[in-house]
């Protein structure tokens, strides 16, 4: 359960990471997350995360294309993602360093 411990399978974080690659609509986010994290977000989970991120001002909707509405990161969203990735990076670096030390 390392992902759960580090919180990196939080749907909101996954959506932020997906949108860091550019604006995407719901289905595109779902496919992207499945691609980079190997996780299949359910539609209710995905839109729950989108709703909370939008409420928090971390993402914003763009003009709908047909029935699909793309979303993009806002400046606070980019900042929050940067902080979280840095935090996770520190944890992963520490873990790798300790594992190397234990193996040697």
């Amino acid at each position, binding site marked *: 359960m390392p992902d759960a411990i580090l919180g990196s399978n939080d749907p909101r974080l996954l959506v932020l990471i997906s949108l860091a690659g550019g604006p995407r*609509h719901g289905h595109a986010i779902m496919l992207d997350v499945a691609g980079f994290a190997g996780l299949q977000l359910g539609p209710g989970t995905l*839109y729950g995360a989108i709703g909370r991120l939008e409420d928090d001002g971390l993402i914003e909707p763009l003009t709908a294309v047909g029935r699909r*509405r793309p979303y993009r990161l806002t400046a606070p969203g980019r900042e929050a993602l940067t902080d979280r990735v840095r935090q996770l990076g520190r944890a992963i670096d520490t873990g790798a360093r300790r594992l190397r030390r234990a193996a040697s």
Partner: protein
Amino acid sequence: MRWLLRLYPRSWRARYGVELEALLDELPRTPSVAIDLLRGAVVAHINSIGGSRHMTVEPGPLGRHPTIAALGALLVTTPTLLFVGGSLLAYQLGLPGMVAWWEPISAAMTASRLADLALLGAPAVAVLLAVAPLVRVEFGAATGEWRAAVHLRPRPANLLVVLVAAALGAVLALHIAAEFLLEGS
């Protein structure tokens, strides 16, 4: 599977319903998708109660039919209107011959305590029924504090029914109180 979207709060559906429908069209209809939608609906309801920054309490179906609500309120309060009107004409204004035929009707209308209560309670029910479609309550967080704002939509027909029902209720309540005091003295 789209019917599961009806389980989400109305405000949530207004915001994301179309997109989620489009997404569901792309997905297989599997039990896991259905369960995820159900879970999402529960979370959306919880968030709409306490987790989001804004919540609006709308009047629901009554809000779309304020005139029907006003007519319904008028209908509910009609027995009280007849009772108060008849009593005023017969006893206060003393219309000739009115007492003779009004008295049995009045006695029948107030034959039991329950009928008395119904006559007195009807205007209150009517007020609620007529005013409900006009009221919208918004809760929101501003500078960290929760605030509530009540918005009243002015609709003359409903407000007139509210005034009539409130006046009837007040007249009847005063009448009952006066009778009670007179009996006691």
